[in-house]
């Protein structure tokens, strides 16, 4: 047995420390990260995180592909929350070229971005439910997840510069209301499962706590930061599209532990439904002669540099584009929403038990492809 017999660690629970590496291809963990942990008994004494197992050289490839082909490439980065990447990239290029999009397009983009956010939150809670064997909660969450992903696939085809190509028949708002009746009943029942005193609360409350000061320093973003009590949401602090015209609250947690992160996501699902309903009402009231697509310059050859960030489901998703007037971007850098959390994972997990690794990692909702591009 290759137990590393280091000098006895005074405050470790047991005297011999086993060096263990939890391999990258792990069925229980959704995104392949290699954890080299030193384990005393059941507790982790120290841990290093190794990334890079899903790095696909996206940014280098982006320098060799023209802009409109990039939209499909960007779509592949995050399987669950795919529209958010494409919409962000398209808006960043429009801002770089100084193109203003009409209101109808902005409302449509907001609808699909919020649908993607709900899908990603349901997916995150479903993986936690699998780990805790709460099969009823898992069924609730994955049903609504599949329904949402199907609606996104059937209704939204491909965003284009200055517009969005999607098939919206007239009873789309009726269909969405019926969808929300289905989804909100699921999330209400899910909330009953995750209430205080339940197994979900007892198992996850108090573990993996990140104080608001620590989260701010480490550069967290999105639900992980809000769970620690800091009300920072790009839709409110640095608004884009037409979010100022839509009213919604920002749910924040209190003590930033694993339980708060999951519950913040659950409350955000309600807010997203609120936003979508308001967008649909405003879109109906728009006068119809709005042009379907914005006036585009003859060819997409932006000049200059821009950093445009969007509040995606996992955190702040930013696109930094440097254009030199050719049809290919000179440099395309994506601010990955989960990188800061992956960096801070090592000292969030130290001191925890081995069993808590999977739920704690799941609470940050790291999506591997987007994290390592």
């Amino acid at each position, binding site marked *: 047995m290759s137990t590393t017999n280091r000098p006895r660690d005074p405050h470790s629970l047991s005297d011999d420390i086993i060096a263990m590496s939890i391999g990258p291809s792990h069925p229980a963990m959704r995104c392949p990260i290699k954890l080299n942990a030193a384990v005393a008994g059941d507790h982790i004494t120290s841990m290093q995180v190794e990334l*890079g197992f899903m790095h696909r050289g996206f940014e280098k490839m982006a320098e060799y592909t023209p802009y409109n082909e990039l939209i499909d490439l960007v779509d592949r980065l995050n399987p669950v929350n795919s529209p958010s990447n494409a919409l962000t990239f398209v808006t960043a290029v429009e801002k770089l070229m100084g193109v203003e999009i009409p209101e109808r397009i902005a409302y449509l983009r907001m609808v699909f971005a919020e649908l993607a956010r709900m899908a990603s939150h349901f997916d995150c809670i479903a993986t936690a439910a699998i780990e805790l064997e709460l099969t009823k909660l898992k069924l609730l969450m994955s049903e609504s997840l599949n329904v949402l992903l199907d609606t996104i696939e059937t209704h939204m085809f491909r965003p284009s510069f200055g517009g969005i190509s999607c098939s919206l028949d007239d009873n789309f708002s009726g269909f969405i209301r019926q969808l929300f009746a289905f989804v909100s009943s699921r999330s209400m029942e899910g909330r009953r499962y995750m209430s205080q005193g339940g197994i979900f609360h007892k198992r996850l409350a108090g573990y993996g706590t990140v104080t608001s000061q620590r989260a701010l320093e480490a*550069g967290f973003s999105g639900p992980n930061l809000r769970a620690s009590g800091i009300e920072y949401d790009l839709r409110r602090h*640095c608004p884009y599209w037409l979010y100022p015209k839509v009213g919604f609250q920002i749910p924040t947690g209190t003590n930033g532990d694993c339980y708060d992160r999951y519950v913040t996501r659950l409350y955000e699902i309600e807010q997203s439904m609120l936003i979508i309903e308001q967008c649909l009402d405003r879109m109906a009231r728009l006068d119809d002669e709005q042009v379907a697509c914005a006036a585009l310059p003859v060819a997409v050859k932006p000049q200059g*540099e821009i950093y445009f960030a969007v509040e995606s489901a996992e955190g702040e998703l930013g696109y930094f584009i440097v254009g030199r007037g050719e049809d290919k971007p000179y440099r395309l850098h994506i*601010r990955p929403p989960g*990188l800061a959390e*992956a*960096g801070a994972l090592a000292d969030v997990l130290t001191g925890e038990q081995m069993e808590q690794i999977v739920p704690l990692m799941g609470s940050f909702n790291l999506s591997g492809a987007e994290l390592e591009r």
Partner: protein
Amino acid sequence: MNDFSATLKKACSEAILAEQNSPDGIVMTIKADKIRQVFETLAGRGTSDGRMLLTDISAVNIEENDCRFELYYHVFLIDLHLRLTLKCRVEGDKIDSIADIMPAALMPEREIFDMFGLKFRGHGNLPRLFMHNDFEGHPLLREYPLMKRQILLEQTKFE
């Protein structure tokens, strides 16, 4: 917004070269060796005008003769709703690290070293972030060919 930039200019006047407004904030060009001083003043004033969040550091490999890299530090001031981008051009391939002032810079700096080979002085340990350890060269440099693969196969390396 402008009172903030005025106070910052007064605090470290010789560091800031130019300043212009971008759609949702300010873009300032700074001298590369004054980067630590700027962040110390920013962090020092962090409590007075609201919390500060270092979102990201982006690097661009420009092929001008004198300098090869241009760094963009994206900082967001939460209470002022202001996005501050600090641009600086790097001569040579070394620059001071700000990881001890802002821990959020740990991962972006490791990634920039891994992808561009730009070393950060004073950063604790600077292992490669994505590529495996015996990967020669830095992929995102212009001269690195797109299709050159270095597959890691030996199991001992992986263990």
